[in-house]
């Protein structure tokens, strides 16, 4: 009885040790992975920072202004070029009322229509 118990305990001990070893190994690997990822992230961040610095150097208004002056026809905007939304002219009236069938479409469907089948050009009164 006692011997069986002892054997069981020894087996359990070995199993536990193996399991612990496995966990330990796994965690070491994971930790290494984490460290590597951290390093990668750090490198990526550094690269992003360098690229952003580069970008803002290229995006510098002085540089853009020189380029624009050399290659574009554009000139600085004048206050008279702005207008209010109310200043827009009215939208021209539709030649065809919105809910009438498409006149060209109906022409295509009836290749030789009598003139009366064309909906009257609806000018709003």
């Amino acid at each position, binding site marked *: 009885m006692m011997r069986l118990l002892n054997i069981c305990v020894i087996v359990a001990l070995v199993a536990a040790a193996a399991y612990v070893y496995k966990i330990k190994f796994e965690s070491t690997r994971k*930790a290494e992975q984490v460290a590597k990822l951290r390093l990668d992230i750090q490198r990526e961040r550094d690269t992003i920072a360098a690229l952003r610095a580069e970008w803002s150097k290229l995006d510098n208004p*002085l540089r853009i*202004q020189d380029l624009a002056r050399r290659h574009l026809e554009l000139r600085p905007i004048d206050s008279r070029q*702005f207008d209010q939304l109310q200043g827009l002219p009215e939208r021209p009236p539709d030649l065809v009322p919105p809910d009438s069938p498409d006149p060209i479409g109906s022409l295509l469907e009836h290749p030789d229509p009598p003139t009366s089948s064309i909906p009257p050009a609806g000018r709003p009164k």
Partner: protein
Amino acid sequence: MTATDATPVTSLPAPAPVRTDWRRTILRSLLYGRDVDRAAKTRARLGLAIVAFALGYAVIAGRLVMFAAQPEGHTGRHVTPGLVGTARPDILDRNGEILATDVRVPSLFAEPNRIIDVDEATELLTAVLPDLDSMEVRERLGSKRRFAWLKRDITPRQRAEIYRLGQPGIGFLPENKRVYPNGNEVSHLIGHVNIDNQGIAGIEKWLDRSGLADLHMAGLATDRLQEPVRLAVDLRVQHALRDELIKGRDKFKAKAAAGLIVSVRTGEIIAMVSVPDYDPNNPREALDPNRINRLTTGVYEMGSTFKALTLAMALDSGKANLNSSFDARAPLHFGKFEIHDAHPEGRFLSLSEVFTYSSNIGAARIALMMGVEAHKAFLKKMGQLDRLRTELPESAEPLVPRNWGELNTVTIAFGHGLAVAPLQAVMGVSALVNGGYLIPPTFLRRSEEQAKALAVRVIRPETSDKMRYLMRLNAEKGTARQADVPGYYVGGKTGTSEKVIGGHYSKDRVLNSFTAILPADDPRYQVLIMLDEPQALPETHGFRTSGWNAVPTGAAVIGRVAPLLGIQPRFDLPPADQLILASIVPSR
């Protein structure tokens, strides 16, 4: 663990004292207890030992669990081993454009005690890095030290080439290097750092002062994960202002030019330019005294701009109104001094005419009417007599006359005899037109609510309305006519002050300024333009007063920045008499 020694005594049943041979009895009872079975005693002791050891192991196990459960706080530091040069937060403008950022660059170092052949190493290194001084390198490599910098900040390509040399005892350390992608554009504002990435001027120094230096000391600020700092400055506006100022400076052959755009409602500094400026990537340029920041480190007699303060004082006191008249028939004699007008009218002028004709005599009479003490108190209230402190470490104390007499009041009334930092004058004028609130200027972002909390009311709102009217009137009829950019309803005041050369006011060396508010009926921004010693040109008909150079420059600036600032152009607005003056509600 020490508990095992002490517990057996106390945890056992207390022995009863025995009368016979008390010493022996006490010893026995202490050791075994009275009438105790030895076997039971041993079992009890064994049990106790088991409990003690079990406790010990439980503690160890518990600690293990705690260690396992805790996040590993110290691994982050191992990510960047040997990183020299501390990280700084990025500095962004109000739209998120980068003004300053950190880039990691390799630096080259040597461990001289590990170098085998000094001559060979020197030769190879100087071949890759031609700008290294071979004598110095040889000396450093030949020394007995264990560490020596060879070159800070090398390019990745140079690093690869040095790697390929295969020399022992030579290595690289990544360092944070501060770069300013916009170069000169924001130089004075941002400041710069030294080789060890410590801020030594401008906002950079302010960053160090406000806690970053302590972080560095603690070794915590090595990572990039610091919150970026957002400033109030707008890079596009800054560029437009600088571009126009440089054009103006070149056109009028001025020694220097400076410009400032602030939000009158919040005190935020949207743009600040002082040319000549320097490239913060090359901080050595900053040592040139000609490149100082004229807006905060210089003090100047602001000339007629100060008349705005004088008139506001009179209007606010109620002793004068817009139609009060002042005698400007003849030059004002004061002791041996004589106050002239630049364009004498030779008659009585109303208060608004004093402003639009920029009459020195009129302003002097107004100040005299108010008296010396009231004048001094008002300027004190407007913050013109004390050093103005902002986030920038550089600031200048105003030059206030020590014995302030009537003559001082007379000259200060039209802006001579009191030298202030231009930023200070801008703060004062902002308070005149924003409804009467004195708001300290800031380089950081600030909302209107925050500004309200900081603001101090210095003049009444009606006075502020009248000042808006006067400023607008000056752009319609007065000296600032050339600044009336169509659509933006600009108001402004010009200032031409003669510079003191060798103790005397010089006639041909002037400092011109132009203060504009836009839009004048409900100001949102104030623009200050300063030109130092502009020259008269044929186009300006030989004049060198502000109206001929600072004002057109200001007009060009306003035309360019107003769309960027989101000011909607309005046309066909009535003149100031109807739009502003008629809407003033008199309070008494």
